[in-house]
């Protein structure tokens, strides 16, 4: 086995052994779907044009969880590792930083995607949320969103000086994005100016892409969010690669 595959295997085991990590990375999203299903059910509602609560909101909440994990949980984890000198020991070996980062990204990406898939499975199979589109398309869109927000998380990790600052900055950045995403607060109830401004938020774009594919729209009808997310992925990856530090 090469160093990278061994790293992937160890990073996977480490994530699974960290109770808080497992909760956020895998179980939080499906548990959240269960909570929503139990509280709101999925009966047709006039405010969702006759669709149920889960029909209308499941993928929005998947997007929000992607943002929270990528922009708060992961940067705090990476900065904590850097602060405790945990990555310093790797620097004293012939291991290439790129090999380390690649393994880290693979593991976090797969865990996030699994968690979103589990959330959608819970919503549709247990609570009967109605998927009008194709599940493969929805998962591909979620994968794009995860990659873009993960890249943002790595860029934040490179910039943030301490875990405390990373936590604070993550919260300060994520909660306005969530508010503007159209998930918990429908964009329709917001003033026009705020609603227009919200269109610049990548999280809003991800929510709109997921909802469009969920309700059966085609990819080509949604090129704006795709361009926004791919651009975010490119910029954040460049920043993260340039600023990565072992210590």
């Amino acid at each position, binding site marked *: *086995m*090469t*160093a990278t595959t*061994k*790293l992937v295997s*160890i990073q996977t*085991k*480490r994530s699974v*052994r*960290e109770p808080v990590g497992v909760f956020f990375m895998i179980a939080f999203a499906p548990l959240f779907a269960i909570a929503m299903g139990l509280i709101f059910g999925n009966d047709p509602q006039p405010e969702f044009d006759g669709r149920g609560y889960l029909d209308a909101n499941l993928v929005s909440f998947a997007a929000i969880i992607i943002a929270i994990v990528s922009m708060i949980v992961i940067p705090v984890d990476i900065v904590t*590792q850097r602060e*405790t*000198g*945990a*990555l*310093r*020991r790797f*620097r*004293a*070996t*012939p*291991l290439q930083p790129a090999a380390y980062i690649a393994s880290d990204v693979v593991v976090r990406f797969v865990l996030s995607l699994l968690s979103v898939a589990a959330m959608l499975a819970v919503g549709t199979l247990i609570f009967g949320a109605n998927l009008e589109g194709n599940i493969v398309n929805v998962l591909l869109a979620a994968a794009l969103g995860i990659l873009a927000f993960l890249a943002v998380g790595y860029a934040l990790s490179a910039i943030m000086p301490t875990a405390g600052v990373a936590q604070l900055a993550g919260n300060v950045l994520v909660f306005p994005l969530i508010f503007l995403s159209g998930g918990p607060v429908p964009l329709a109830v917001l003033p026009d100016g705020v609603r227009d401004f919200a269109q610049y938020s990548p999280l809003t774009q991800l929510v709109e892409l997921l909802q469009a594919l969920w309700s059966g729209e085609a990819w080509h009808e949604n090129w704006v969010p795709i361009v926004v997310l791919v651009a975010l992925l490119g910029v954040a990856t460049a920043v993260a690669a340039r600023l990565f530090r072992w210590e």
Partner: protein
Amino acid sequence: MPDAIRCSNVTKHYGDIRAVDDVSFEVHDGEIFGMIGPNGAGKTTLMECIEGLRTRDTGTVEVFGMDPEREVRQVRERTGVQLQSAALPHRMKVGETLDLFAAFYQNPADWRQLLSRLGLDGKADSYVEKLSGGQRQRVFIALALINNPGLVFLDELTTGLDPQSRLAIWDVVRDIRDGGTTVFLTTHFMEEAENLCDRVAIVDHGKIVALDTVANLIASIDAESRITFTVDGTPPVDRLKEVSGVTRVENASGRVVVHGTGNRFQQDVMSVLSDIDLNVRDMRSEQPSLEDVFLALTGREMREGQPT
């Protein structure tokens, strides 16, 4: 003798602080070489410049004839490093950690053998963070040995350990040297340097102020030893003063301190005491130590673990 390390005129600043100041020295193949000095003396900085983990400002460093800043990969392949401050990511087991680090190198050691050599049999499935301090330190030593290095750097490997674990680690270090690996270590403990190191460099304010075997360093300062004892009756102060090498005799109500220099004076004092017909009790002999060498060279005490 070929040299594992050669440094000449190495200097390193952090801003205005000159942490390493024009240092030149060699570490011979196959020896245990130690650096001692107070906190902030620049030991770690110098070591990291040699490891290639820090960029020196000026000077040259050769590790097995290679520049650690240029031939990074080859130097990493042939050296092992135990850092003064390094943790590992949480929730890694001992065995899988060693297995992972083995995968980073071209000629890794058999990590199971390494574990048993370091007395960590049966610990492969324990989490590194759940081990005792001494066991964890051994894991970091194992990581430093995972690539069968010809040279291993050990930065303060016994700081924070109890005396018993420290003795056990000393055996491990001697064992490493006897296996043919050159050892370059730093320590705060004079005792450790005295017991373990073939040669010692005393570092102060970024400079090496002395470098030799412990015996030569102590001999070089021509310091006094002391013999202290208690007698019932009148001590033979005048006879003791005549012993060759004795410089001074103090007598405070039966408690006698004889100061002197040279190799023979202690023996001669003993024979005077065995001649006389008095009860001699509580006899103690104090030799000059590296502590005295540091005091003589810098005019300051280097107390263990105390910032100066």
